[in-house]
């Protein structure tokens, strides 16, 4: 019965999104006020119905209703409660329902926080968001319905993929989807503005906090994903340039470019067309990511349920959304001409450079991801690996790092390069000093690591000096920007150190054996077999000491989940501010209790994620700047007048 109610609420939400698509927009074109007024209530209703639908799916998992195919496939009687709940979004169907719910949450939030927008504006924005909901609701209902029954109900369920039985996977997808889907808001705002035929600074100002918030979520989602891959996959790596990872990275790159170019287009009335294009690009890449992950066109270690017919559906959605948006962009292009003039030596130029660097990086990652497909179209097969992405990305980040501080110091419209360089001269001096100190502390560093350390110091020092110069009169937006930039510096430092000074040994260890690694004495005590929750584990016991003092006791596991028969490596990690110790068990080698053991020392790896978290905080902090809301209020009357005239 419960599943049928879930089904029913889903259908209702689908119908509501259809109404949301049609009514307010029709009202806009026919200048019918009462139709336009339906936008907000419809958005709230849609949210309520989807929330109920989603909660029902959660309860089906909690209640272990195996007559529901999706529950049966992804849960079983032994699965602990917390994983039964997270199993709701642990596979394709449920995760698409979560996606849809989050779409409704953003739509509801737009409806709620849009008091400053005029009736005609909000009607258009919510209608466009309705179109997006409609497409995905249809996708969930027709192509990946989680409420379908299989009768008779099996006695016990399959199991949730053991890789996903983990805290990281409980929170990673919702946060990542908040980011993905959040990009639909600047998209919808741009489209709504294009429909009206006019993009003024109110529109852009109003879309900035949404972009920042979505970008913050996306950043955090990616950080969580990377952290999960690091401790759960047991390879000691943190980023694999896997198609699924790239799928989340592509919208992030576009979003980063968008955030920076929005600053110009709001304040200086330039690059309006480019802003619209990036907003379209950001959300389109989110949808493209979904397509790549769900359709099975690309293989990936994350291998999601793949199904070509689903692929066709998502591709059709992508074609409608992005194709429609780009078509609209083309016919409105005449009205997007920039007016604000600026000289080459100005902040505009630097922010343009930023958005070009990030767009090119985005394009290169996209190219690398799609290359296998491209070659296949000509009957060849090819794989693109981390070396391509790694070196490409390094090349892109060099100019980004060099120019970042310049962008902060340059003035709008027109500035003297000489003045900026003079201002940055002390910063350059301190940077050199700092980088040298770091270099001598950790030498030898190779070229890439040295450049990375230099770049990190350069950004870090410039931001600090910026605070010193401008203290006392900074808005939240500027604070947010600088927090995020500090995050970039810290991330850069973490990556440079982790990637180039890490240490790894693979060896056979017998119980009682001690390995000395970079000053740490690691003693292997042996392996015992344990039964924990729904799995069996061979648990190793290691005692790590430094100068005779015990630093950590570590228990890596080799897990065996009887239901699916998968062996799983659970690494033991001793996290630290300056280094992580990472031990993972390989296989039992001989009868004397000898095991293959892999030991890593990862210097400063936490800094990388710490940097990411700072970027997220910066995004959120900037989004909360009152100016975006207050100013919009003052603009309200003016807007209404304008639109009544138009």
């Amino acid at each position: 019965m419960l599943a049928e109610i879930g089904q029913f609420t889903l259908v209702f939400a689908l119908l509501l999104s259809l109404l949301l698509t049609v009514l307010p927009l029709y009202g806009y074109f026919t200048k019918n006020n009462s139709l336009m007024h339906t936008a907000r209530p419809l958005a709230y209703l849609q949210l309520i119905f989807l929330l109920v639908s989603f909660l029902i799916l959660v309860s089906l998992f909690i209640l272990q209703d195996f007559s529901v195919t999706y529950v049966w496939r992804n849960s079983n009687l032994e699965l602990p409660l917390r994983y039964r709940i997270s199993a709701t979004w642990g596979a394709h169907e449920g995760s698409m329902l979560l996606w849809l719910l989050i779409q409704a949450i953003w739509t509801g939030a737009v409806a709620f926080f849009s008091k400053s927008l005029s009736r005609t504006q909000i009607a258009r924005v919510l209608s466009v968001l309705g179109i997006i909901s409609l497409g995905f609701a249809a996708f969930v209902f027709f192509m990946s319905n989680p409420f379908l029954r299989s009768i008779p109900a099996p006695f016990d369920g399959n199991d949730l993929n053991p890789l996903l039985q983990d805290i990281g996977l409980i929170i990673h997808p919702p946060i990542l989807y908040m980011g993905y889907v959040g990009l639909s808001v600047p998209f919808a705002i741009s489209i709504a503005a294009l429909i009206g035929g006019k993009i003024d600074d109110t529109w852009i100002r109003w879309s900035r906090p949404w972009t920042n918030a979505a970008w913050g979520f996306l950043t955090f989602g990616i950080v969580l994903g990377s952290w999960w891959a690091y401790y759960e996959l047991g390879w000691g790596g943190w980023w694999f340039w896997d198609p699924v990872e790239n799928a989340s990275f592509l919208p992030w790159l576009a979003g980063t470019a968008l955030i920076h170019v929005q600053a110009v287009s709001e304040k200086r009335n330039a690059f309006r067309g480019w802003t619209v294009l990036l907003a379209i690009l950001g959300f389109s890449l989110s949808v493209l990511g979904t397509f790549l992950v769900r359709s099975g066109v690309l293989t990936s270690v994350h291998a999601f349920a793949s199904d070509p017919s689903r692929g066709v559906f998502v591709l059709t959605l992508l074609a409608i959304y992005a194709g429609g948006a780009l078509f609209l962009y083309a016919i409105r292009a005449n009205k997007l001409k920039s007016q604000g003039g600026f000289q080459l030596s100005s902040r505009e130029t630097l922010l343009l450079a930023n958005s070009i660097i990030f767009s090119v990086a985005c394009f290169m990652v996209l190219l690398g991801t799609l290359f296998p497909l491209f070659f296949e179209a000509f009957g060849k097969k090819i794989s693109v690996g981390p070396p391509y992405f790694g070196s490409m990305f390094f090349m892109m980040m060099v100019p980004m790092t060099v120019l970042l501080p310049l962008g902060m110091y340059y003035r709008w419209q027109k500035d003297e390069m000489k003045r900026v360089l003079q201002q940055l001269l002390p910063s350059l001096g301190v940077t050199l000093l700092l980088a040298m100190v770091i270099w001598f502390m950790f030498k030898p560093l190779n070229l890439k690591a040295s450049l990375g350390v230099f770049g990190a110091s350069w950004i870090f020092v410039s931001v600090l000096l910026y605070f010193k110069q401008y203290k006392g009169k900074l808005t939240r937006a500027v604070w947010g920007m600088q927090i995020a930039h500090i995050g970039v510096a810290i991330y850069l430092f973490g990556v440079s150190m982790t990637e180039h000074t890490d240490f790894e040994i693979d060896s056979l260890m017998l119980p009682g054996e001690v390995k000395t690694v970079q000053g740490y004495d690691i003693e292997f005590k042996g392996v015992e077999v344990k039964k924990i929750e729904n799995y069996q584990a061979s648990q190793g016991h290691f005692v790590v000491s430094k100068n005779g003092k015990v630093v950590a006791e570590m228990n890596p596991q080799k897990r065996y989940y009887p239901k699916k028969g998968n062996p799983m490596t659970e690494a033991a990690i001793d996290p630290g501010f300056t280094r992580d110790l990472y031990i993972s068990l390989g296989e039992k080698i001989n009868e004397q209790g000898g095991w293959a053991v892999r030991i890593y020392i990862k210097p400063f790896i936490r800094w990388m994620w710490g940097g990411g978290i700072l970027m997220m905080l910066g995004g959120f902090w900037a989004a909360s700047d009152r100016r975006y809301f207050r100013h919009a209020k003052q603009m309200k009357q003016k807007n209404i007048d304008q639109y009544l005239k138009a």
Partner: protein
Amino acid sequence: MNKTIVKALVPLVIFLSLVILLYNGLGKDTRLLPSALIDKPVPKFSLPSLLNDKIIDNNSLKGQMYLLNVWGSWCPNCRIEHPMVTEFARQNIIPVYGLNYKDEDADAKAWLNQFGNPYTDILVDLDGRVGIDFGVYGAPETFLIDGNGIIRHKIVGELNPQNIQNELLPMIDKYKNTIKN
């Protein structure tokens, strides 16, 4: 149409070609389409064996018709397929070689210990280079190679009674005269 609009159409055109490419990719991935390597010689390879110290290369397999089954201990569908591979090998129609794809030796051995080893011998393709030459898209995949070292058939995904009966056995029959010795 004026110039601005023509310029503004560029993103749309780029996007549409991308959609065509992606659609094409979808078609290509359906498991029915044959590999580009069908009726072409086996790519050159020289790989260590998982089971002993020997190196296996094109020459060591010359003259016999065999199946090359791509698998990995990390691949869930390989486990599903495994009883089918075992059954096929048991019938002794032609030898079955394994290509252990992007796998750790220790994991692979543990896997074989647990589920049994149906393979005559197993080639270790740790970094997946040979897999790339073969156009391996993902495990499991199975290649039929005739006595002249020509790839005659490829099955993407698991072996099952249907594709063995309808695809592999007729092909084996057709090319059995290539078996030397």
